[in-house]
């Protein structure tokens, strides 16, 4: 966050590009300031009825007017938006999350046009997931629409949504993290190069990506292009036709059925029914004992154990390394209206601080801590598959939350025997005493119970300090 000593407010480090306004915190409460240049557009949004329409449909974040607050002045407006549970980024989303975010942007665009308003940008970062659904969070993105004008957000929409979606669906599912490298969207010439030849035969991809990229290149230094651009007149029907075309393009991109290492994890466990049931009961017992408000389930796969935390009343994020497991979890949560937020993360290389001055997009750790993390069936992947020392795991976990539920898996477990079958066992400290010794440096043990019918032990711990 950037300090603003003049008014004792903390401007959010992600909110600095728009001259019409910015987000800030005062006494921990989130506000949006709308500068003088943005007031006209804000008033049009509010008086047109579009705000009421979009918030009623739960498309747009609602806010309160706080004009009476002591930090407001005559030349700006301050509003208090609804606080979100968590801010996630497009490079942490699965395919369907990005697709739903794209469709919501286009729905809002279509509604806006009918009110004489247009979205001035189409950033994927304007969407967040709240209560299991996408929500548009940038109240400052709306501006008056003038008949004849083009949609300024079109290129950004293609870079932020269409390019990554087509790359994931037609290229490789792992390309969902490509947005981490290109935080303002995938450059279209780059997407065009990466897409398979077959994509040229698909009209929507051919037009909005390949041809779009070629046109950008063709006219990047052209005076003739500027003359042509200045003559363009986009009628309202043409804008609506363009939105229709983009909706069809997004709807036509679908993920093929893909099998990955983790996508059928819970159908391939080495637990007996007794062990699985006992583990579930213990997790519920530990969560009930602590009663956390916020939980991160690390390596949570399809969210089976996250669901227990949800049932105990917590707000839960289920993190996993596998895009297909996250995809399955999201689709299932959407179908069952479960409020788990499934997100993608590689814990051995978690989301870093990114963007301008390393402050625009926050790291996983900087978006915590939460009340509790769960690391179930995870420790052996970090300690054995990735050679992370137990002490380092304990240290990092202690920074993410106060309470920890962790499952220790002994070397005689079939999963670890499999991991060690093709490599030398160099993990002399990997045993329950070594685990306890390492974690005792950062945690106080609250409870410890062996899971029936397994060689696994479940621990409940509280971080020191």
């Amino acid at each position, binding site marked *: 966050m950037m300090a603003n000593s003049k008014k004792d407010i903390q401007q959010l480090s992600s909110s600095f590009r728009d001259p019409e306004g910015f987000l800030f915190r005062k006494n921990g409460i989130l506000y949006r300031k709308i500068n003088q240049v943005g007031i006209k557009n804000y008033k049009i949004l509010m008086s047109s009825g579009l705000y009421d329409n979009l918030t009623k449909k739960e498309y747009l974040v609602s806010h309160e007017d706080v004009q009476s607050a002591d930090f407001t002045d005559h030349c700006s407006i301050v509003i208090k938006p609804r606080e979100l549970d968590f801010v996630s980024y497009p490079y942490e989303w699965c395919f369907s999350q990005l697709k739903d975010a794209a469709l919501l942007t286009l729905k809002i665009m279509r509604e806006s046009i009918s009110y004489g308003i247009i979205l001035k940008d189409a950033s994927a970062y304007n969407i967040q997931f709240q209560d299991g659904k996408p929500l548009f969070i940038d109240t400052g993105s709306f501006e008056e629409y003038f008949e004849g004008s*083009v*949609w300024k957000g*079109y*290129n950004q929409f293609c870079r932020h949504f269409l390019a990554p979606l087509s790359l994931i669906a037609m290229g490789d599912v792992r390309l969902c993290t490509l947005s981490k490298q290109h935080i303002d969207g995938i450059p279209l010439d780059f997407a065009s190069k990466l897409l398979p030849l077959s994509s040229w035969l698909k009209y929507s991809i051919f*037009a*909005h990506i390949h*041809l*779009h990229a*070629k*046109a*950008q*290149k*063709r*006219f*990047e*230094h*052209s005076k003739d*292009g*500027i003359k*042509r*651009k200045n003559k*363009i007149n*986009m*009628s309202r*029907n*043409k*804008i*609506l*036709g*363009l939105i*229709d*075309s983009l909706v069809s393009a997004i709807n036509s991109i679908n993920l093929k059925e893909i099998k990955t290492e983790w996508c059928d994890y819970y159908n391939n466990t080495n637990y007996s029914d007794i062990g699985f049931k006992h583990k579930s009961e213990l997790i519920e017992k530990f969560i009930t004992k602590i009663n956390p408000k916020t939980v991160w389930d690390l390596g949570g796969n399809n969210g089976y154990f996250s669901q227990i935390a949800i049932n105990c009343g917590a707000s839960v994020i289920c993190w996993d390394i596998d895009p297909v497991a996250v995809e399955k979890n999201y689709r299932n949560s959407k179908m069952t209206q479960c409020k788990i937020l499934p997100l993608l993360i590689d814990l051995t290389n978690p989301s870093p601080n990114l963007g301008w001055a390393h402050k625009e997009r926050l790291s996983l750790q900087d978006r915590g801590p939460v009340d509790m993390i769960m690391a179930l069936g995870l420790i052996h992947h970090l300690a054995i598959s990735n050679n992370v020392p137990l002490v380092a795991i304990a240290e990092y976990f202690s920074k993410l939350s106060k309470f920890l539920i962790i499952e220790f898996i002994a070397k005689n477990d079939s999963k670890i025997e499999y991991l060690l079958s093709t490599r030398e066992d160099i993990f002399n400290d990997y045993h329950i005493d070594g685990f306890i010794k390492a974690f005792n440096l950062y945690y106080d043990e609250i409870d410890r119970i062996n899971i029936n019918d397994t060689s696994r032990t479940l621990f409940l711990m509280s971080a020191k300090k």
Partner: protein
Amino acid sequence: MVSLQINLREDKKMNRNTIPEILVIVMLVTVIFVEPTYAYLDPVTGSIIIQSLIAGIAVVGYIIKKRWYQLKNIFSKKKDDNDGK
């Protein structure tokens, strides 16, 4: 390219015998065959032109669809009215 020009100017001040011939050849070839680079790219113009082109094609389908729904509404209203009677 700019940096190469500066280097060439600086090279004139240097003792020519100290510059290996191969370096001069490489520099000349680079200067002759290098593609011009521009510091200021304009990615917007092409994007707007293509936006207008795609919208021009899409608007035909959009208007047909709009008229179809209008017709459908008229007929379904008439049907409802008849059912009501």
